[in-house]
């Protein structure tokens, strides 16, 4: 990569870290460190929520998905605006009004300590591991693209993030998120502009070609429990997933607890509601434009350079055979694409579709051969956009793009570390170990906890390849309780529900999702959250209203 690109990356890192280090004024006490003194404006909180959710793998993986699969993934986000509006009128006023540090603390005020501790523990378990995978995913890509050692990539992303998160607390995290969001969106628009200008045919004709392969098909109205990306799974399953994520996950809740007022907290969530679908559509559209770019420019057979080299070295004859067939198929598709762009009608598009399918067939064989040679899935889709940026975009773009990838990774990790630290200190250390400590003592504990979680995440990231199956187990376990925790919060909104109902309901919800997950694995994971939440509310309500004793602790919204 050219030195100018490295200068851009260095300037970005310097600005984010130095600004984070400067924001220590508000971190004299625990509320300042974890909640920025509940003083942030709605638009900063909103951008922070969006930056947290937009991880590096969204940036590189989703564009790759757009290139190979088209726009239909955007349906996954259809429930998001609905969830944000529902949260704005339900959970947000309760949480903000309760003046809590964590979402789980609210559950002790409403139910009891064991429900709080269990939900907080489940959060720490799943998010602790996912912080590692959030660092690992872009590190693996950077390591393969630049040929660096994985550990150095993990350190490049992890160390600056830990530094400004430990020192500046949530205020540094939120303001860094704002800058990171600007870098990310700027990079996306720049890439769109370059890709459109580089098309050798008019955009309208190019889109006709993309459309002929089904990549511009957005809406699928079929109602099936087994297909993940349909209009209905997005609207229903997506709403429950987003309700769980934004309503009960501390990494998100902590953002809007830092807002000045309930109205500002709600408005910050609506900012995500505003922009998430258009932004996600833009990211996928970039993928479609990348597909079109590589339709008229020779595309690599394998985008993952490490897998390409491994296959070439280990099975030179197989590689040469595949490469010859791939080159021929590429030339045939190129000719068909140019014909389809200039000649109107369905016949040339049909020829293009056939040639494109033939090319995909050869590429699939190459991917399978590479996977067999290396013993691992190539995740080739994650390498499409980095290769395009490095190989084809003008000078400076690679620097901006790399800065955007680092920004996306850092903003997500910072939020995870900050929220993991908050839950550890407030829900466990302060609650069970040392309830009578001074504010400065807890502030120091918060900093130590952030650093420990940061180091833990980097260790997990470094060993992510070997920990692969363990991480999958934890992620799968995580999907068992996401919807169930939402169910507990919904139960908290219902008058006269009780602690026993909440705790047993939570266990029943998790059990139900586990049963569906193992008993009917074909049911898409988007429906797991719906099942979990509904079971908790039904079981919890039945137990609450079916028993005589009262242990109700009503709580008013603020």
């Amino acid at each position: 990569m050219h030195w100018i690109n490295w200068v851009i990356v260095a300037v970005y890192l310097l600005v984010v870290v130095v600004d984070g280090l400067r924001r220590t004024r508000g971190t004299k006490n625990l509320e300042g460190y974890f909640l920025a003194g509940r003083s942030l404006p709605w638009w900063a909180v909103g951008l922070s929520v969006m930056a947290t959710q937009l991880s590096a793998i969204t940036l590189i993986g989703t564009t790759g998905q757009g290139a190979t699969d088209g726009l239909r993934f955007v349906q996954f986000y259809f429930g998001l605006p609905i969830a944000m509006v529902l949260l704005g009128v339900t959970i947000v006023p309760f949480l903000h009004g309760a003046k809590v540090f964590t979402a789980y603390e609210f559950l002790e005020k409403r139910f009891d300590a064991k429900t709080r501790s269990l939900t907080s523990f489940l959060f720490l378990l799943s998010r602790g591991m996912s912080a590692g995978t959030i660092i690992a995913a872009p590190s693996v890509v950077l390591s393969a693209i630049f040929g660096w050692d994985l550990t150095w990539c993990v350190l490049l992303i992890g160390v600056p993030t830990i530094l400004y998160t430990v020192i500046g607390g949530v205020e540094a995290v939120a303001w860094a998120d704002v800058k990171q969001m600007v870098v990310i969106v700027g990079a996306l628009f720049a890439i769109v502009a370059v890709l459109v200008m580089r098309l050798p045919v008019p955009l309208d004709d190019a889109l006709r070609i993309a459309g002929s392969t089904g990549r511009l098909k957005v809406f699928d109205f079929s109602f099936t429990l087994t297909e993940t990306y349909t209009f209905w799974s997005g609207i229903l399953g997506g709403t429950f997933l987003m309700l769980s994520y934004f309503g009960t996950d501390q990494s998100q809740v902590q953002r809007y607890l830092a807002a000045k007022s309930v109205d500002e907290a709600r408005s910050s969530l609506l900012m995500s509601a505003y922009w998430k679908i258009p932004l996600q559509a833009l990211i996928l559209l970039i993928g479609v434009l990348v597909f079109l770019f590589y339709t008229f420019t020779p595309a690599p057979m394998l985008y993952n350079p490490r897998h390409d080299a491994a296959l070439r070295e280990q099975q030179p004859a197989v590689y040469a055979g595949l490469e010859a067939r791939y080159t021929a198929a590429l030339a045939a598709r190129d000719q068909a694409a140019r014909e389809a762009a200039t000649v109107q009608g369905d016949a040339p598009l049909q020829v293009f579709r056939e040639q494109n399918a033939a090319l995909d067939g050869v590429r699939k064989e190459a991917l399978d051969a590479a996977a067999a040679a290396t013993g691992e899935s190539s995740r080739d889709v994650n390498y499409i956009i980095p290769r395009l940026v490095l190989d084809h975009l003008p000078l400076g773009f690679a620097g901006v793009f790399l800065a955007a990838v680092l920004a996306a990774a850092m903003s997500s990790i910072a939020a995870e570390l900050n929220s993991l630290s908050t839950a550890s200190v407030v829900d466990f250390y302060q609650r069970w170990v040392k309830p009578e400590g001074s504010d400065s003592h807890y502030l120091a504990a918060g900093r130590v906890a952030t650093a420990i979680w940061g180091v833990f995440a980097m260790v997990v990231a470094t060993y992510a390849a070997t920990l692969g199956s363990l991480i999958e187990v934890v992620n799968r376990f995580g999907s068992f309780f996401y919807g169930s925790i939402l169910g507990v919060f919904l139960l908290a909104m219902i008058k006269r529900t009780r602690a026993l109902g909440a705790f047993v309901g939570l266990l029943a919800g998790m059990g139900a999702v586990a049963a569906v997950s193992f008993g009917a694995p074909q049911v898409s994971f988007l429906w797991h959250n719906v099942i979990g939440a509904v079971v908790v509310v039904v079981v919890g309500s039945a137990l609450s209203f079916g028993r005589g004793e009262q242990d109700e602790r009503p709580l008013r919204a603020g």
Partner: protein
Amino acid sequence: MSHFQSTLVRVLVIQVMTLALLWLLQSRYTA
């Protein structure tokens, strides 16, 4: 009207416009 309510109206408008644009894109270019 509170800030939340006025933002809510704008959210609805943007979502409808985005979905309409995606629908137009699909119906124009997908057979």
